[in-house]
């Protein structure tokens, strides 16, 4: 009886050792992955901040002002003026919707033969 207990506990010890060994390596692998991910996150964050800075730089007011001046022909943008405020009365009513055109009557006739080569 005692021998069985010894054998069993020895086997259990080996099993636990094996489990601990695997867990150890799994943990290390997970940590490595976390580290890699964190590096990636830091890299992406950096890239994001660069992009944000770039966006702010490209949208700086004096550049936009120069661009609107340069592209005045196409855009026709001018600084906002008090006269551009309208009143509700100035808004046109939506046009009355025309009834849909439908052919309720049958049209009879023959379709022209499609020309060759088309």
């Amino acid at each position: 009886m005692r021998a069985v207990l010894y054998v069993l506990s020895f086997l259990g010890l080996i099993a636990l050792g094996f489990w601990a060994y695997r867990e150890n390596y799994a943990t290390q692998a997970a940590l490595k992955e976390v580290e890699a991910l964190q590096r990636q996150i830091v890299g992406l964050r950096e890239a994001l901040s660069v992009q944000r800075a770039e966006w702010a730089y490209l949208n700086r007011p004096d550049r936009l002002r120069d661009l609107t001046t340069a592209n005045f022909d196409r855009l026709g943008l001018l600084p906002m003026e008090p006269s551009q405020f309208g009143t509700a009365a100035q808004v046109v009513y939506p046009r009355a919707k025309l009834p849909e055109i439908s052919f309720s009557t049958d049209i009879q006739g023959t379709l022209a033969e499609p020309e060759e080569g088309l």
Partner: protein
Amino acid sequence: MRTPLRPLARILQARQDGLNPDSIEKENLRIRHEALREKARGRAQFRLVILCASFVVAFGAIGARMGLMAATEPMEPRASAPGAEIIAQRADITDRNGRVLATNMTTHALYAHPKVMVDPKGSAEKLAEIFPELDAKALARRFTDGRSFVWVRKVLSPEQMQQVHEIGDPGLLFGPREMRLYPNGALAAHVLGGTSFGAEGVHSAEVIGVAGIEKALDARLRDPAQGGKPLALSIDLTLQSTMEEVLSAGMGMLNAKGAAAILMDARTGEILALASFPTFDPNDRPSPLVDKNAEPGDSPLFNRAVQGVYELGSTFKIFAAAQAMELGLVSPETMVDANAPMQWGKHKIKEFEGKNYGPLLSVSDVIAKSSNVGTAHIALMIGPLRQQAFLKSLGFFDPTPLELVEAPGAKPLIPKKWPEIVTITTSYGHGMSASPMHLAAAYAAIANGGVMIKPTLLKKDGPTTGVRVMSEKTAHEAVAMLRRVVTEGTASLGDVPGYEVAGKTGTADKPKKSGGYYKDKVVNTFASVFPASNPQYVLIVTLDEPQDDTLSETRRTAGWTAVPVAAEIIRRVAPLMGLRPKLEPPAMDAVTAASN
């Protein structure tokens, strides 16, 4: 094997010898007990040794671990998943709508280990080619004089870094650097200030604020607990840009040496735009002037809106009028003595260009026509003590509480003694100097119905509370007077149709360093609030030494310089704030107005 206590052989032997056999039993019993005791002691000793050993091992392990931890480089905890809070970066600064005003960029610094350099002289020459500001000879000398570490450049662009890589010297090394970037260039430069590097190491460098809000709120911006949360300013980028555009154009047209403007929300005290010219690029902050004779105002770093302490001239007159109305001494229609020139002791108080608006003028007309003599008489009714107390309550005796590092240094210049002649001159803004920011805060109190609020550069949620310095009725009457200045007084060029501009002009001669005043150098100020029927915004425009030469004569009064600039700013800025132009309510019947 157990030894018997009474071994038969020895007992029989003892009996034969006539001895007491019991002694044998006792002896054997003693031996057995001794053996037992010996065994127990051995076991206890063994246990003690084990215990000692385990203590030694345990404490040894802890000690070794501690030593190891102390000796090794610190490491981030690897197992926990960090969020945004670990980026130990200086927080961004944004405007009130979240548009970036200041952010960080990762670049590299260049340093050299001359001892491992292959070709120090050749590398020095190639470096000087890449960076024109480096001197090849000096650099070569530093590389060869036996030192083992040389900083070459604090910040590199990626292109420059590539070029340095192409030199291919193993002694040229890069360290990561966080760099402060102001993407909008010179925009709001005086608000932002600038940064520089503090403690520098190879792996990182501290970015510290050197001026403006970067320095004033340095601790907040660097606080890791804030987790890089951007700091939202009250500044609106669009308004700021528009105001700077108009102001710099106006400054150029009027040949002014400098200019400043402040746009402020009268209810909350938030500064929506703050400009000072000449300006600079905070990305490349110029060094301060070293010449001792140079005036601080000559440096582009000088913030005229906050640091510039000027005699603000007639813009002060409204305070005398408002206080007199608040004290019940006058009403807007009360006639006061305005017979110029006025003799007070040995001093003669004159009007602009020696005019005479007298003999009697209503208080409202005193403001509209900007009569010095009329204001002087009103101030004398108030008296020095009450005048001082009122100006103090409007914040004219202390530096502004603005979140700029320059603000606490800009103390208003107040006369040491306050005799009645000072009461008179102060009432029309002479002899006492304050910054345009002081004026903005005081005008905000008039505009918002009489509550003194703290000007701030930080975005606020909801209205702020402040100390009431005058009744709502007085404030409304003061605004109505300011409105008359624009409709029929000295600031007629300031009328912007639909926005009911109300304001007061101020022209002050610049004081000479040696005493006295310059004849042809003035500081022009226009302090305005709009729209008059429900004042929401305060705009202060100050021009330093402007002159208008467009017509045959040279004009230096604020009505011809600061006022048109302010009007153009309002015309451009008000629609951007979503302020609808409106038809003015018809003027109140004079009889009704006078009946209360």
